[in-house]
């Protein structure tokens, strides 16, 4: 008896969401098959890779990243350098300086940074806040105003601050809203519903369903991705069909597998190699479970994940 190939084709698809403008704009999502299952149907838009930079620079900078940005004087220089990497599809700028518990930089300064970064690159831009709900809301409103017409994505609107962010980013300035929930299908869906009720078109929403590093309760991330993906495709749930973006590097470069120095853990070997390994492992696992984009830092991780995506699509 010949082998009968099973096929899982769905009558529903993940939303195709455009980021950026001009020649280098990209589309996230659009697929109607399980992640990388090109044998079920062609996948038009491969998963995308963003590079993450911070307006404060990162602590514990590893040599490979430090060397890569050597000579850059401003955040805009760094963004330009990062955007020149062939495997990078978009650039993410974290406005860490805004954090009221840290430098507490005024909104106007951050707007200037965002504008300078946006002018330095021709690839799509993702704006990441400082993880303070109130400040992010103020920040995104002003940045979105300054970046009108750039079609940038803002990470993130959460249950606590979605109202003003969705209204400013999604409605007033017509850009993309990132909806962040914490590793739970129902919470993810509820936030999408709330943001849609404000009037933001589903096609202007991207989800961040929550994230973790491999080994750190990562099974919840994988299962939430699996469940969201299957609700979107097999149950045609329109409130879960937004493409998913997963910030990977901010998690993986903070855990001890990546931060412990070689002096502290001599048998573990190079901290940089460990960090790359954590970043690559985590990124590939979320892509294989349905994330349409990942955010990374190390040039080697970016190159490796990009190569794997090319091989699979």
């Amino acid at each position, binding site marked *: 008896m010949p082998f009968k190939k099973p096929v899982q084709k769905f009558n529903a698809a993940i939303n195709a969401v455009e980021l950026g403008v001009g020649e280098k704009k990209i589309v996230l999502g659009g697929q109607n098959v399980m992640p990388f299952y090109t044998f079920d149907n062609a996948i038009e838009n491969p998963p995308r890779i963003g590079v993450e930079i911070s307006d404060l620079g990162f602590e514990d900078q590893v040599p490979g990243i430090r060397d890569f940005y050597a000579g850059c004087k401003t955040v805009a220089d760094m963004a330009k350098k990062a955007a020149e990497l062939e495997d990078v599809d978009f650039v993410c700028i974290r406005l860490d300086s805004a954090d009221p518990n840290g430098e507490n930089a005024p909104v106007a300064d951050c707007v200037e940074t965002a504008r300078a970064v946006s002018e330095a690159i021709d690839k799509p831009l993702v704006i990441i806040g400082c993880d303070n709900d109130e400040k992010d809301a103020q920040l995104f409103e002003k940045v979105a105003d300054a970046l009108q017409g750039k079609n940038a994505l803002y990470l993130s609107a959460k249950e606590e601050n979605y109202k003003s962010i969705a209204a400013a980013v999604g409605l007033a300035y017509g850009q993309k809203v990132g909806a962040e929930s914490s590793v739970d299908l129902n919470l993810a869906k509820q936030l999408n519903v709330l943001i849609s009720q404000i009037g933001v078109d589903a096609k202007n929403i991207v989800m961040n369903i929550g994230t973790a590093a491999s080994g750190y309760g990562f099974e919840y991330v994988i299962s939430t991705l699996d469940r969201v993906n299957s609700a979107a495709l097999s149950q045609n749930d329109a409130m879960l069909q937004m493409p998913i973006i997963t910030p990977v590097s901010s998690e993986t470069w903070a855990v001890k597998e990546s931060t412990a120095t070689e002096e502290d853990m001599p048998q573990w070997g190079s901290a940089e*190699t460990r960090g790359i390994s954590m970043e*690559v492992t985590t990124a590939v696992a979320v892509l294989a479970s349905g994330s349409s984009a990942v955010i990374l830092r190390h040039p080697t991780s970016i190159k490796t994940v990009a190569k794997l995506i090319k091989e699979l699509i």
Partner: protein
Amino acid sequence: MALKGLDIFKLTPKTNCKECGNPTCMAFAMKVAQGSIEVTKCPHLSEEVLAKLAESTAPPMKTLTLKSGDTEYKLGGETVLFRHEKTFVSKTLYAFTLSDTMDDAEVKAVMDESLKVDYERIGERMYAELIFVKYTGNADRFVELARKAAEAGRGVILSCSDPATASKAVAEIADAKPVLDGANASNYEEMSKIATENGLLLGVTGENLDELYDTVEKLEALGNKNLVLNVGCNSIKTAFEAAVQIRRAAILNKDRVFGYPSLVDVAAMAPGDEAMQTALASLFTVKYGSIIVLEKMTYAESLALHGLRQNIFTDPQKPMKVEPGIYPLNKADENAPCCITVDFALTYFVVSGELERSGVPVNLLISDAGGYSVLTAWAAGKLSASSIAKFITDYDIENKIKNRNLILPGKVAVLKGELQEKLPGWNVVVGPNEAVALVKFMREFANK
């Protein structure tokens, strides 16, 4: 192929005698098809029919046993495509490679580096369970390396499609019960003979899925059902397709020809590129690889991949727990303050990670809270002033630690008053609500 209720009904006597406890033979047949009743409950079925039914009602993927040193591992036996449906039962095993092209120095380097990786993470031993010994034409060297691998006390996979050489190597290390990987469309009869005579698992491969399918059918016809399916390495794309299709065929189509565990040689797909091998190993750990072969097992690869595997193969209903006790962080000694939290593994990881990031020496106290998170444990009465006081006594904390500052999770700030009464010698401090705030909190606390 699995039988449907109607097919099973045709095999019953159709007398409706009710001896099986069902009103009709049809009802019985339906239950058998669902797997809710054993076929043997009907006393009127012939041996032949029983055998046929036993085969068709067996689980979709066989569970096979593999030896690694003194430990036995299960391969296969999976029943679902996604872990939220049901636990993935047989964790992925990792192998590193010795090839007959490697000289002594190379062999030693790979063995030293890979065997060194052996540690414990949340109660589980993390190491490369297997050594993949690869034949490319030098038979003597291959046999020699097979012996070396067997002596290392790990499981062995012999990768060899030449029956004469394979049989020499098998004879040399028969006691180690290696997996013999190398059967294909042209040699399967001889390879199967070697494997069956020595009681070994046989690895089968094909140029494509159709050829593999055909060869497995032929091997089954020979009576060999101890198989592992090598997904091949013509390209990453075809290997991924094969791993997915094999699993889907078994689970979705109940096609037992592909109801076997898989083997993925990622070393062969990305030779010399450690980062790419890590990427591929991650992909195949998430998507259906039973055995994954790397060039070597480094700490960098292991920390990431074994952590991933431990998460993926966790029972979704049962949270992972860490052992209660004292966990000194940032070189804390008896003079460092204490932070207390619950034994839910995720809580432990997040909290210990943030505390480590603060750089402040601190003794993390993990109390027994039934594996629940802070709020759930509190709601369930498993984290209370009494449970914390009891923990302090049971684990003799007052004699082991001199510092008398005890930092409580902010979410259970309500416990402060009662706890302060129960622990008179201590200064109970309320910590932040969220772990992320610990870095700042600890630095400020240390400066006071």
